[in-house]
């Protein structure tokens, strides 16, 4: 599904150049539930943006579903994003003047689905995340957890192959965080690849594979079987802390 080969990325601000990704090699199979971890500045959000075709990279190669994603025209990238991926953000990024149903329906607008039909589908997805009664509420009338559930419904409506979640629980309390994670697990169980960025160990521990980044390189990949060990180690870290 996803294959990264020696991907480099630098940000140039004025005369300073910041080398964020220093050669990433990564393979993610269809149906995996992956979390990307790392301290701030380790390049985890940058990596997610590149994976989500929200940003381009300088060097290397990125194959998505077998095709090379590089130097794409904005139009083509937009189309690919629309068809292939869904996004869930830390700050939800709902359009403030649209109600829950309209927010969920928006990706279908860019697929050319007519208003009646896409609103109907949007209601179905809102039902799936348990917010059917909130369909005509504006984002600022909803709690954080509700907003994130709307965002998840929105990311799902275009029936994507991959869901990218950038700190999806970063703005939520523990209970709602776990609710959101349950939801992502369900989505993953439905066959959709889920990749999330987090710095919370308990959240990462709920995924099948953890990619740890350090200073722009992959430091460690912890597979499913090792998770117990990781949890143990994490518990130890907590004790010593």
């Amino acid at each position, binding site marked *: 599904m996803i294959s990264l080969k020696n991907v480099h990325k630098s940000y140039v601000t004025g005369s300073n150049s910041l080398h964020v990704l220093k050669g990433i090699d990564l393979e993610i199979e269809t149906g995996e539930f992956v979390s990307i971890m790392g301290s701030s500045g380790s390049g985890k959000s940058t990596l997610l943006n590149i994976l989500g075709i929200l940003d381009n990279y300088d060097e290397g190669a990125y194959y998505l579903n077998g095709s090379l994603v590089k130097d794409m025209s904005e139009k083509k990238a937009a189309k690919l*994003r629309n068809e292939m991926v869904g996004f869930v953000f830390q700050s939800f990024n709902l359009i403030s003047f649209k109600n829950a149903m309209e927010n969920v329906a928006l*990706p279908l607008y860019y697929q050319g689905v007519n208003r009646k039909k896409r609103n109907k589908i949007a209601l179905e997805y809102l039902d799936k995340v348990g917010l059917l009664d909130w369909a005509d509420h504006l984002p600022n009338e909803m709690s954080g957890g509700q907003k994130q559930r709307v965002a998840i419904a929105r990311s799902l409506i275009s029936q994507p192959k991959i869901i990218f979640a950038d700190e999806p629980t970063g703005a939520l309390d523990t209970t709602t965080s776990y609710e959101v994670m349950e939801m992502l697990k369900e989505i993953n169980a439905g066959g959709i690849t889920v990749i999330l960025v987090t710095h919370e160990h308990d959240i990462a521990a709920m995924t099948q594979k953890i990619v740890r980044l350090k200073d722009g390189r992959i430091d460690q990949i912890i597979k499913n079987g090792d998770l117990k060990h990781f949890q143990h180690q994490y518990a130890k870290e907590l004790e010593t802390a």
Partner: protein
Amino acid sequence: MFDIDKWQEIFATIKKNKMRTFLTGFSVAWGIFMLMILLGSGNGLSNGVSENFMRDAVNAMWLWSGRTSIPYQGLKEGRDIRFTNADYDVLKDLEGIEYTSGRYYIRGNKFSYGNEYGEYTAITCHPDLQDVENIEIVDGRFINQVDINQTRKSVVLGKDIYDALFKDKNAIGEYVRVNNIPFKVVGICREGGGTRHRNAYIPVSTGQKVFNGSNRLHNFALTINATTLEESQAIEQRVRETMARKHRFDTADESAMGSYNKLEDVIQTMKIFQAIKIFIWIIGTGTLIAGVVGVSNIMLIVVKERTKEIGIRKAIGASPSSVIGLVLLESILITTVAGYIGLVMGTGLMELINLVVEKQYEVSAATNGGNGETIFRNPTVDLGVAMTATLLLVVAGTIAGYIPAKRAARIKPIEALRDE
């Protein structure tokens, strides 16, 4: 462009962002509104004044004879100058003269018909006077060449005279007594642009014959064929020289022969109005520029404000062109509708003022023996100018929106979505 879904999306956005829509719309509507008022007022002032001028033909010129005040070729001053029919023949064929009419003054102007009588002015004239003084025929005809040739006792009555003598009866073919001499009524007329119609016209030849004038004429009314001040002055000079040579007086002797050239006055006044018009246009253009700047400013802010929204839209699959289209179509829609509203409001106000002014004009016309006074009439703006101004604002708004919209569409979604 005519995708219903796209428009629904735009209308939804407009509906949800009322303040933003109002501000953008208001700056456009206000600009157009002010422009309409400015240009309308300018036009109204100009129309009012030129209408006062247009009562007679604007290129009219009058000559009257007097007494010399400067010795000339051995002749002493204080000599009477007398115009005759021969002068009429000379003037008529002079280059640059269009219409010519001579007049012989007759004494006592008592008009009577049956038991009705009144004092009015009888003007003896040639048929051309109709063109010089813009006389409108209400009924019948004006004095014609046959009247002159056969010295017929025909009379054209002013509307007020007809009303006084005949009430509503038929007058054409009836005989009216002027100084006790019967004249046959051939027409009823109104004075062009004026509201008083107390003059009666009789053939100049008849006037001279009946009232012992032999071949004497007292003054001439002419129209000249000139469009500029220089041409007009040249023709006036030519007329003076011709008459001076014929009657032997100094060309510069204003009291030997007086002349009044209306075109000179008109042109000079029009020049002032030209200046006023230019001034109004400068202010109007300034208003328009202020409007353009206002619209541009708001569009910049709008796009800035929408950066995050644009980022979201892009993340979920909006192409750059669809983002630009969304922003631009919205701005075009708002500016067009607002421009139209401004146009309608401005025109409406001007029409309202027009209504009031016309009412006042009628009232003053009724009290002032029919001569309405106004310096402000028909304050409307050329539709083409108004449309162009509106279009300009719409285009300016579009360009002002396009540049930041394009930049916003090019921003990477992550940059737009980055938390502040």
